[in-house]
């Protein structure tokens, strides 16, 4: 494995940690300004309504109020949520915004705004809106259409989904999943699933819902914007990413990107919900434009429930056929996906879910049918494994059920179906660049003590029954088409101007480890650059478990450019040809006594100029580099050795996918319904592990969030009014430190390199969540001998199952 590396695979202290433990780390709300204005928004009190009239005159006249905007003053959006909306489609959507000299005045000004409403029909339930005669969440339709793409692909291709109306006129809605379903917008197959099911020895059929939860990062989304009279806009923001946020915000507020700069130094978590820019980020910018003063919107926790981008929901119907050894001969899946009223994200949920099912289970035949709908619920955006983890939660317990009914071991059943390298994934059967899910399962089993523990399943111990379960999840974890940038200063320091945001994964720094590894430079000579759009190379956002691969690869590319330049410079300076020289240990040498330190080479580069110092850009790079990357090197041109890199088509053939497998031991108290997770092992196939401590932290974090998904979290609505009803944290319950495993979490990775990944690395963050969530719910279902179609599984759900006689506990 990764034993010959200097940096990769070794722990280190990333450069932002000291700031974090001393309190010096500044998040968006921590920056202090004189002359700062404070923004607050007037929000819709209805699930769906239209503004008939709005009177902001009292607010405008109020002393201390400097600007007032309504939905009439901001750009409209065809499908996404505008900054302010005149037909708010969700409770809590802002309609108007004020900027005032302090927060108290801003609050009073909002209270002084008068709106006359026309209340419209609302719909909360995704199946409901498919019924003939049922309400649509939007006036212009009830489904997003267009190609179903992953969120990353949608942004890269700037796809523009449209809106349509579909009702299932002939469906029977009396069953949990409608029978005789109507039109689906996504339809694809692997082979002929009816044949696959026909030859099965055993078929499992069930409807399972994957429920909506609020993403709720620890930091509510606050943003400060200062739009100066000379047209320059600076933003101190809360976002997971840099490049996409920067371009996205510029587009959203109508600014020229060249006039925009963003400070995105520390982000208090995002988990997808702050993946790029979002409407709240536009509001202070648009207000600031009016007054040319800095404006801050301090995000509140309650607002995170309204517009904080939660997890999309699915209703799945599965029909899965198994051979008697547990091999899946046919997988027929139908799903209705719901991402709220304000985005086409149901489409990427569908893409993610269906691809994950195909990749993880490798069914011999498969039929996938899906449709996304709108409901008047908060916009759901990619939350940690959006679609993939919903599928995992829903399907994995069915596999344990099949194993039980077939009388075979659960792990053996899983190992019959896991993917290996080269196996297909998704509609187009793209080959997996690497896949070691089977090994992850076996490592998890070993760490968990599966052979000893499995006999505990169903065992009574006083009021308790034990449950043992397992599950897996996956997520596409690497993309190409992005830039890297490295500069070697005349003092010998290597400054890596990478473009990933800092949301707590340490990938912004780990990708520099990958680049530095290629360059062979000691870490103490490296300066990690992050947090400013004007010094960031352009890369994909920090979502989709992709950063380690995507940005890492682009930084490796930049390092490769640097290596080739150093070789040329050394040859030029010391003699011989470039290929005579190696770059290692902070110097470039030919092994026969001719060498230059990086400092010497950088100085030589400066005197040579041309491509070495960014004064001329090689044609192929010029064509592919994003203007943001070129601008990021702007202040260094002519002053340092500048190496650009770009990852492109030839750098990746196939589908990069990361996998996790988990095993869980739970106890269920039959008297109270309380579930305790005693032990959990969660192991990943993420390619080469770059930063072990952070790797373990990502798995632990994903596992703990996954436990919340399975046991405690849910968006609840009052059906009559459509209003979200549990919008405080004690009602909408993320796991506390007392709510996860009793034993320390067991985590680790296969650590086998991916052929395309930078030094073999793949992305990390999302599969651990789905694996843990599915293992926990499988364990509960196995232990109780019950099936759950809804989550979370809380004490009330367990007691209801017992009261209904639907458990098989002695």
């Amino acid at each position, binding site marked *: 494995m990764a034993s010959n590396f200097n940096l990769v695979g070794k722990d280190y202290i990333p450069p932002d940690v000291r700031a974090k433990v001393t309190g010096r780390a500044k998040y968006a709300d921590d920056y202090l300004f004189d002359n700062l204005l404070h923004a607050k928004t007037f929000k819709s009190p209805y699930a769906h309504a239209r503004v008939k009239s709005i009177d902001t005159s009292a607010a405008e006249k109020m002393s201390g109020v400097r600007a007032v905007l309504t939905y009439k003053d901001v750009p409209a959006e065809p499908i996404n949520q505008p900054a302010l909306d005149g037909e708010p489609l969700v409770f809590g959507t802002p309609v108007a915004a004020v900027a005032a000299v302090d927060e108290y005045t801003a609050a009073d000004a909002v209270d002084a705004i008068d709106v006359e409403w026309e209340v419209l029909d609302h719909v909360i339930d995704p199946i409901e809106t498919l019924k003939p005669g049922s309400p649509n969440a939007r006036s212009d339709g009830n489904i997003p259409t267009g190609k179903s793409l992953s969120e990353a692909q949608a942004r890269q291709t700037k796809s523009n989904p449209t809106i349509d109306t579909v009702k299932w006129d002939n469906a029977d809605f009396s069953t949990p999943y409608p029978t005789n379903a109507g039109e689906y917008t996504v339809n694809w197959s692997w082979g002929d699933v009816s044949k696959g099911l026909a030859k099965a020895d055993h078929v499992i059929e069930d409807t399972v819902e994957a429920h909506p939860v609020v993403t709720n990062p620890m930091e509510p989304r606050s943003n400060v914007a200062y739009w100066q009279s000379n047209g320059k806009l600076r933003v101190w923001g809360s976002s997971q990413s840099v490049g996409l946020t920067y371009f996205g915000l510029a587009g959203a507020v109508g600014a020229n990107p060249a006039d925009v700069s963003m400070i995105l130094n520390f982000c208090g978590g995002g988990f997808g919900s702050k993946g790029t820019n979002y409407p709240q980020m536009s509001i202070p910018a648009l207000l600031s434009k009016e007054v040319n003063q800095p404006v801050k919107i301090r995000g509140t926790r309650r607002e995170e429930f309204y517009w904080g981008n939660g997890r999309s929901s699915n209703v799945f119907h599965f029909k899965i056929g198994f051979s008697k050894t547990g091999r899946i001969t046919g997988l027929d899946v139908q799903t209705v996906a719901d991402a709220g009223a304000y985005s086409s994200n149901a489409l990427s949920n569908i893409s993610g879910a269906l691809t994950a099912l195909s990749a993880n289970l490798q069914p011999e035949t498969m039929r996938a049918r899906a449709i996304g709908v709108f409901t008047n619920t908060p916009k759901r955006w990619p939350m940690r494994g959006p679609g993939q983890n919903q599928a995992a939660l829903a399907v994995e317990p069915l596999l344990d059920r099949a194993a039980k009914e077939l009388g075979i071991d659960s792990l053996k059943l899983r190992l019959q179906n896991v993917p290996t390298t080269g196996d297909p994934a998704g509609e187009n059967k793209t080959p997996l660049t690497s896949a070691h899910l089977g090994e992850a399962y076996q490592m998890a089993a070993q760490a968990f003590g599966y052979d000893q523990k499995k006999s505990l399943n169903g065992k009574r111990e006083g009021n308790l029954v034990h449950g043992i379960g397992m599950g897996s999840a996956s997520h596409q974890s690497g993309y190409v088409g992005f830039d890297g940038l490295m500069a070697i200063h005349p003092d010998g320091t290597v400054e890596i101007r990478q473009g990933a945001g800092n949301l707590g994964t340490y990938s912004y720094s780990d990708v520099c480890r990958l680049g530095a590894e290629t360059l062979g430079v000691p870490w103490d000579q490296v300066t990690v650059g992050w947090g400013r759009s004007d010094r960031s190379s352009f890369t994909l956002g920090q979502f989709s478990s992709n950063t380690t691969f995507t940005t890492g690869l682009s930084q490796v590319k930049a390092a490769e450019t640097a290596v080739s330049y150093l070789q040329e410079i050394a040859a030029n300076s010391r003699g011989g040809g470039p290929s005579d020289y190696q770059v290692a240990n902070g110097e470039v040498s030919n092994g026969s006594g001719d060498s230059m330190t990086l400092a010497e080479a950088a100085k030589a580069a400066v005197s040579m100029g041309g491509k070495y110092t960014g004064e001329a850009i090689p044609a192929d790079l010029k064509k592919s580099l994003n203007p943001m990357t070129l601008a990021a090197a702007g202040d260094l041109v002519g002053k340092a050795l500048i190496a650009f890199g770009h990852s492109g088509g030839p750098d990746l053939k196939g589908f990069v996918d990361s996998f996790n497998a988990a095993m869980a031991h739970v106890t269920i108290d039959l008297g109270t319904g309380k579930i305790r997770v005693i032990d959990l092992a969660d192991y990943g196939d993420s390619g080469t592990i770059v930063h072990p401590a952070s790797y373990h932290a990502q798995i632990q974090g994903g596992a703990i969030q996954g436990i919340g998904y399975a046991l405690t979290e849910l968006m609840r609505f009052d059906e009559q009014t459509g209003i979200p009803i549990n919008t405080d944290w*004690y009602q909408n319950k993320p796991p506390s430190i007392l*709510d996860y495993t009793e034993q320390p979490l067991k985590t680790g990775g296969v650590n086998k390199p991916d052929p395309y990944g930078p030094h073999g690395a793949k992305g990390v963050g999302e599969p651990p969540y789905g694996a843990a969530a599915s293992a926990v719910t499988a364990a509960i279902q196995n232990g109780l001998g019950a099936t759950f179609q809804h989550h979370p599984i809380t*004490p*009330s759900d367990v007691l209801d199952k017992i009261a209904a006689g639907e458990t098989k506990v002695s």
Partner: protein
Amino acid sequence: MQDDMIKPLQIVKPTTVDEAVASLQKHGTDATLVAGNTDEINWLKDRVRTPRVLVDIKDIKSLYGIDQQSDGSVRIGSLTKVADVASSDVLKGSFGVVPEATSLVATPQIRNMGSIGGNLSQDSRCWYYRGGFDCYRAGGHTCYAITGQNRDHSVTDYSRCVTAHPSDGAVGLVAVDASIEVQGPNGTRQEPLSDFYVGPQENITKMNDLAHGEVMTHIVIPKTWRNAAFYFEKVRDRNSWDFPLVNIAAAVKTSGGKVTDVRLVSNGVAPTPKRLRAAERAITGKAISQSTAKAAGQAALPNAAPLTHNAFKVPLTQNLVTRALLNAK
């Protein structure tokens, strides 16, 4: 819906109870009484309540302390922090159910800030009421929970309002027959803690009978249940912060192996702390065994009328009764 910004107000800090009473009277309904303020402040931040004056009694030194009395009773000042009640050696020694109950309130920080009086007199946690819906409890003309989301609500003793009482401290103290002392414009009064609580039939807008202008000064635990066998359990979704789905506090006295007196009190099931008298009657005079404890459990909540989403609370309460009787020590 304006989050987080408390409307400007004035804080007055009386140093005696008389001053506090006078202040409340002077400002009338413009003023609200606060102590630890861990809950009232949230209403203010949501701007659902907008008092102009807060009468903050935290500086009244005479209202702190847990004091053993010579007659075997214990007097607890109403401003005593929940954390101090939870860690009190005086109480752990002889009235252990009270520290046990209060040790599971919320989180360490809230226990450090909140007063026991505040815990006892806390307001409904119904998410419609708290969310600013104009329900009966808020002075309006309907209940949203009855036909809506009512998982957290009552299964018994409700009327037009179906809220459930959320306090853990209350069940611990009701189980040991605690009484309270209240001082107000008309002087001082005492009453059993169980009488302090008010059901919706009596007053649909208040959870207890504290009138405006009154201050709860002390909680008194009589010697009655000293060194009895006790049990407390709180069943909630998460193991921190959360209010009880159902909790139970039990105090049991036995003689010659048989139960001579028993208190079984639950919250989460009714708008006021619920004495499970049917279960108490079922076990009194019997020896506690698996079968008698089970029977007593089954006897609990005979008149329960669960709502659409909370039927689980009935078997839960019954199971907790059985568990309490079998494990009380």
